[in-house]
């Protein structure tokens, strides 16, 4: 599939709702195949991007192509190759899991027998065979999400958009969904998912695109991103407020993270002894300010913080089960 057009190709995409600019000249490209994460805070423009790609929202300007087709002028062709599953799990509560899937498979153009076979196979694959005959209203949150994902596969799409697929799920269901998403990519489908969970992007995605204020601020594998913004972090804890303030002043905007309450700050490093020694000498020339230090792997959190000036991880919404 060397010559396959990119799964997604956005050029200078703009979209405003009233006075609110949501996409501000977004340009990005997603190659065919693999799992790609669109990472960003609430309001960064993730959902709008996905809605434009899924032909549900028209961009104000710029171009958006999916598998080589323009999302505005060639909507039909786009709709033939994509599917969308999202936060809301759009299913009929009053229909059983099986009926929901058969209906969608028929709408996707399968004949009656083929639709039944596809529905049964998907229920099996998503571990829902036992619940196939129950109305969806009786499903748990995790089961609904799995049914939603199964529903998005009835038409055998080549590009799947998942808008915050695990938001609101308990950790176990989230884990289960991650495995399924991994399998999709294994089957040759291109998955573009939006998430505000770094852990999710880190675990699942071959490539991560960071969206901030409606534009792309970083693009690469998790390892590349961490490497580019300093693969390691030197975390320093200071004796008192005066030494903390002095060190912060010396480092200026090289500080990647500061926590005044703990008198701690961190700075990027490659982790080599000479460089760490050099840094310590530079920041703490009198050798009595630093009370302890640690060198650790940079996390995506650090990358995010560096890129956007704000920590990403919002308080996790974990449902208790």
């Amino acid at each position: 599939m060397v010559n396959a057009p990119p799964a997604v190709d956005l050029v200078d995409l703009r979209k405003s709702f009233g006075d609110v600019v949501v996409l501000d000249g977004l340009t990005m490209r997603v190659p065919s195949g693999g799992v790609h994460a669109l990472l960003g805070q609430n309001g960064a423009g993730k959902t709008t991007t996905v809605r434009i790609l899924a032909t549900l929202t028209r961009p104000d300007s710029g171009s958006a192509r999916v598998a080589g087709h323009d999302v505005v002028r060639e909507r039909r062709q786009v709709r033939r190759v994509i599917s969308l599953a999202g936060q809301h799990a759009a299913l009929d509560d009053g229909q059983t899991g099986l009926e929901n899937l058969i209906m969608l498979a028929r709408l996707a153009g399968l004949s009656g027998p083929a639709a039944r076979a596809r529905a049964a196979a998907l229920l099996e694959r998503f571990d829902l065979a036992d619940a196939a005959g129950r109305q969806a209203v009786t499903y748990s949150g995790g089961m609904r999400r799995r049914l939603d994902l199964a529903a998005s596969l009835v038409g055998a799409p080549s590009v799947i958009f998942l808008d915050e697929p695990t938001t609101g799920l308990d950790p176990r269901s989230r884990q289960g969904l991650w495995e399924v998403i991994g399998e999709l990519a294994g089957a040759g489908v291109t998955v573009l998912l939006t998430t505000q969970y770094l852990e999710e992007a880190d675990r699942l995605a071959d490539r991560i695109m960071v969206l901030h204020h409606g534009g792309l601020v970083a693009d690469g594998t998790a390892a590349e991103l961490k490497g580019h913004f300093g693969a390691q972090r030197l975390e320093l804890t200071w004796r008192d407020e005066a030494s903390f303030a002095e060190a912060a002043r010396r480092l200026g905007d090289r500080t990647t993270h500061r926590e005044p309450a703990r008198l701690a700050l961190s700075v990027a490093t490659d982790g080599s002894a000479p460089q760490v020694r050099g840094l310590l000498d530079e920041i703490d020339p009198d050798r009595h300010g630093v009370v302890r230090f640690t060198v650790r792997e940079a996390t995506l959190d650090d990358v995010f913080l560096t890129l956007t000036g704000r920590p990403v991880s919002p308080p996790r919404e974990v449902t208790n089960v």
Partner: protein
Amino acid sequence: MSELAIRPTQAMVMVGRCVRLSRRNIDAMLTSLLLPVILMLLFVYLFGGAIDTGSAYVTYVVPGVLLLCAGFGAAGTAISVTTDLTNGMIERLRTMDVGATSILAGHVVASVARNSVSTVLVLGVAVAIGFRPAVEPLRWLAAAGVLLMFLLAVSWLSAAFGLLARTPEAASGYTFLVMFLPYPSSAFVPVETMPDWLRGFAENQPVTPVIESLRGLLLDTPVGSAPAHAAAWCLGLLAVAVVLSGLLFRRRVA
């Protein structure tokens, strides 16, 4: 206008879906079946004695109750359409390239089917309490035709209102409008008893020719031009509803 193109398989699948969902929505089903019957009993036994229409009141009022029942049932379409819009189902269908007409046709046909069932029920109860229609199959067929046209028009109009409403609660408000329309007509009292200004409205609104047609056809009395007027109103309203819902769908879903 790919939005308005109808693909038979998709439309049939959507009809099957809506009928299945209607059948399983027991609460709505009971309301739409019981309410018209209760209303009929109310009119016949409570108000009927005081209203002089020149014949047994049950004979006069049944066509009106049939329309009341139709309007009420059809308004439920608005609620289902708004629910589909707010829970993301319509968006899923759009990304699968299911056309607006197929989606709405599913709701409308299910509504017509639902209402046909409740119409038969109301008629059955009416006969049990003394309604004696004429026995002439052709006239019955014509009455069924008029009623079906009315159901179709009101259901599709209701679907358009469903596209306009932001929440299912707001959509259900539309029920009142449709429920109210049969009152200022010849459904429950002869229009001659109304004050002039109201009579002018009652004689020229769509429900009156439909009622007059049903009454004439079921009771074997002259109908005059009522069926033609009824057909013109219903088809006109249907055309407006189809175009309006197409426009609203584009605006709402793009």
